[in-house]
């Protein structure tokens, strides 16, 4: 295609050049003149050819370079993203053990039907939902409040912003290890504080609700500041005029927040909801490390085992890669459902506003 188009267009100027060259040297002079004319024409021809070559290269370059620019992404994605994604589906239809991943035995939908009757799977799903709610809802609400406060004219605003964001720089592993100590039953700082307040000590790790609350606390601690900054950015993009007219109408500060700030922030809030939901579905590191040495069971009674952790347990502790693949696809399905519900809610909201 490129070659054909190139030839068609380059033919025109060179033909025109030849015709034009014939005009000025039309008179027959002496041999000296003719030789000079000859040389000039040869030079011109060479230049034309060079220009043509450059032109062709130029066209070739503009045509194909965009593909070269996007190629690395798609190349890496194909090998390390798309292929594994599809192959997971294939593997989920087989019995595959980690010890000999080449021996794949076709079992059809067995891995999936097994999941439906697997109480640990439903337990993990339930835990993922409850921990997800316990971590996402307070996280976003607090972030909204903190962003509102940060939106004031502050002395040392940089300090507050950086301080609020530091947990974001802390890894899951480091954060969880510290919180394991803080939530310790016998000598943890949180129980010590509860004792000072006249309340009894809580066995954070072994209770169902308490352990889920503790795991959620780690998530909330790490991500609230990050979300607060995202809200703050959105608040700063709200046009001043909206606040001015609200003030002229005599709206109090709280009313301004409710009727100006919140509606303007709706797209950002939805965005953070989606991102947090995806994050909550994949929760893995916090429950893995919160159980200390217990491994991937998510507590002695699986009380805080999430889907991500259950996948890991099936694949890399119990060595059933096929089952792990089925869990992965189930997680993907759940994400798709959440996405669809989300879209429904968004449309409802848009219609009502």
């Amino acid at each position, binding site marked *: 295609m490129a070659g054909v188009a190139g030839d068609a267009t380059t033919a025109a100027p060179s033909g025109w050049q030849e015709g034009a060259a014939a005009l000025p040297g039309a008179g027959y002079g002496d041999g000296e003149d003719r030789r000079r004319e000859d040389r000039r024409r040869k030079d011109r021809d060479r230049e034309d050819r060079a220009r043509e070559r450059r032109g062709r290269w130029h066209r070739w370059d*503009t045509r194909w*370079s*965009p*593909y*070269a*620019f*996007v190629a*690395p*992404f*798609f190349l*890496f994605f194909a090998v390390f*993203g798309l292929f*594994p994604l599809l192959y*997971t589906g294939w593997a989920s239809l087989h019995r595959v053990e980690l010890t000999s*991943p080449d021996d794949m035995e076709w079992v059809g939908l067995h891995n999936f039907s097994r999941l439906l009757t697997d109480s640990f799977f439903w337990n993990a799903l339930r835990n993922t939902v409850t921990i997800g709610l316990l971590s996402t809802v307070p996280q976003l609400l607090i972030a909204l409040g*903190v962003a509102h*406060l940060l939106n*004031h004219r*502050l*002395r040392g605003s*940089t300090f*507050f*912003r*950086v301080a*609020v*964001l*530091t947990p*974001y*720089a*802390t*890894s899951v*592993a*480091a*954060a969880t*290890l*510290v*919180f394991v*100590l*803080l939530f310790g039953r016998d000598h943890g700082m949180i129980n010590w504080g509860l004792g000072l307040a006249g309340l009894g000590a809580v066995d954070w790790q072994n209770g169902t609700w308490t352990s889920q609350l503790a795991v959620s606390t780690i998530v909330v*601690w790490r991500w609230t500041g*990050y979300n607060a*900054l*995202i809200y*703050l*950015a959105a608040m700063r993009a709200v046009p*001043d005029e909206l606040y001015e007219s609200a003030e002229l109408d005599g709206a109090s500060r709280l009313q301004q927040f409710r009727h100006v700030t919140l509606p303007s922030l709706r797209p*950002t809030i939805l965005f953070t909801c989606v991102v947090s939901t*995806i994050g909550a*579905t*994949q929760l*893995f590191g916090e429950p893995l*490390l919160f159980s*200390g*040495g217990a*491994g991937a069971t998510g507590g002695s009674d699986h009380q805080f085992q999430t889907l991500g952790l259950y996948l890991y347990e099936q*694949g890399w502790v119990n060595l059933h*890669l096929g089952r792990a693949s089925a869990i*992965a*696809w189930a997680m*993907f399905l759940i994400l798709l459902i959440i996405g669809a519900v989300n879209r429904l809610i968004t449309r409802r909201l848009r219609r009502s506003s």
Partner: protein
Amino acid sequence: MTSTTERATPRGAGGHRLRHRHRHAGRITYAVLTLFAAGSLFPLVWTAIAASRNTTRLAQTPPPFWFGSNLLRNLRIAWTDANMGTALFNTVLVAGTVAAGTVLFSTLAGFAFAKLRFRFKNLLLLLVIGTMTVPPQLGVVPLYMLIAELSWTDRLQAVVLPTLVSAFGVFFMRQYLLQALPTELVEAARVDGASSWRVVWHVVLPAARPAMAVLGMLTFVMAWNDFFWPIIALTQNGNPTVQVALTGLGRGYIPDQSVIMAGALLGTLPLLLAFVIFGKHIVGGIMTGAVKG
């Protein structure tokens, strides 16, 4: 988006218009924010305190609130016994490579999607955005089989290569270049006969530099803290990243709590230092990225 609005009405210079919005903070605002900042910083400070004590002291009530004298000893044990030295070196290497690769490839692809014309462009862009919603868990089993097949278990390329490109990065750079890079500038360079690579070098890269810095920092932090895949691809005693080594510590290979805290401190300190130095820029980057994304 934020940068333009803020440039249009700079703080202070805006006079009466801004007085409406950015009211001076009252005492309660300061109090609440200080409390929140303290809550954000406390676990980190306490990590350092616990790392400077010993296990016996950590198992007493009330817990310590001030530094002890064991910091160096604990750091030394974590460094040697828990492989934290190797782990730190590996993590710097991995996070650096991933950040550099992501920034480079994202800038190229983002430029193509923002300013160049080619067939299937919209379809390909849709594909990029679509990949963002695919959870990493979905590919982890075949990915593991792949690296096992290549005998890459416990080797750093197993962690680097799968995360070398990022859909978010491509999208981020596209959004930035759409408005930060004037199309006329690209066309002018073209008319002057510059090749695509010259355009990238002399026009795109200078224009993209601020966004590249932001994306680089965000990717570095993300790669440094990456957990799920490294835990599967690397082992604690072989060739770990910091996160993998910390997991080993937490699972009780070394049952000394103060040493575990020293390890956590070692794994967090480099990023904390970066926050102290570049904090303002990182905050600004997250805020611009948030509105654009």
